[in-house]
């Protein structure tokens, strides 16, 4: 089965490249503690992989990654990031002060994992938001 362009090469290369791009994007998101990168960069790569699917495969990509999924992912990630900020207020810290998120745990560990989860939420949020913008620009939300 080939996509919009009736080209086997484009189809095969896209199917081979997209998982690699996504794995590398998750590596960039989760490796922000030790190397350049982080949520914004990895999220853009994830969005780019979905947009590559959209361009090369056309109709089939909407079954793999539905049109509504983008804004859903962005919204849920934003909500979780906000909750992470308010949980620390609940236990006596400031907004997004990770050292207070779980009472009784070591502050340094907590800040390490706070940075980790903040990067993951930012990555998913950028991913969903950019895919949603692309879909809105290209299809206007009408069933193709």
């Amino acid at each position, binding site marked *: 089965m080939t996509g919009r362009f009736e080209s086997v090469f484009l189809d095969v290369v896209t199917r081979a490249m997209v998982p690699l791009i996504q794995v590398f994007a998750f590596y960039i998101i989760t490796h*922000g503690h030790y190397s350049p990168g982080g949520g914004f960069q990895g999220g853009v790569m994830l969005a780019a992989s979905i947009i590559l699917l959209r361009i090369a495969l056309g109709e089939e990509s909407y079954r793999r990654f539905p049109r509504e999924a983008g804004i859903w992912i962005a919204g849920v990630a934003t909500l979780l990031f906000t909750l992470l900020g308010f949980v620390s207020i609940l236990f006596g810290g400031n907004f997004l002060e990770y050292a207070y998120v779980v009472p009784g745990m070591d502050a340094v560990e907590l800040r390490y994992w706070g940075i980790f989860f903040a990067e993951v939420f930012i990555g998913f949020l950028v991913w969903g938001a950019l895919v949603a913008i692309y879909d809105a620009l290209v299809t206007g939300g009408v069933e193709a």
Partner: protein
Amino acid sequence: MRILGFVLIVVLGVVLVWGIGDLPERGDPQAPAPTHVASYYIENALDDSNTPNFVTAVLADYRAYDTFGEAVVVVTAALACLLILLRRREDEVEVEEESR
């Protein structure tokens, strides 16, 4: 009106170029930027949050509030795009036109 605008732009440009002379030297250790909190971040990021890459520590921990705002801006942009560009399906539009 055009001449007034031109004169205004020239005056503003001259003032800005004149202001360049008061900027600190590149890499000056006594400049305001590296003497305020930057040295604290560089010295304590590893001990505070176990994060060797202190750029990430500043971005996602010390300045998390700022990063949160940036992230919300991205989501707001996506929502605005959807609100402006989202079209309804053809049949829904027709129903509305008939009811008019």
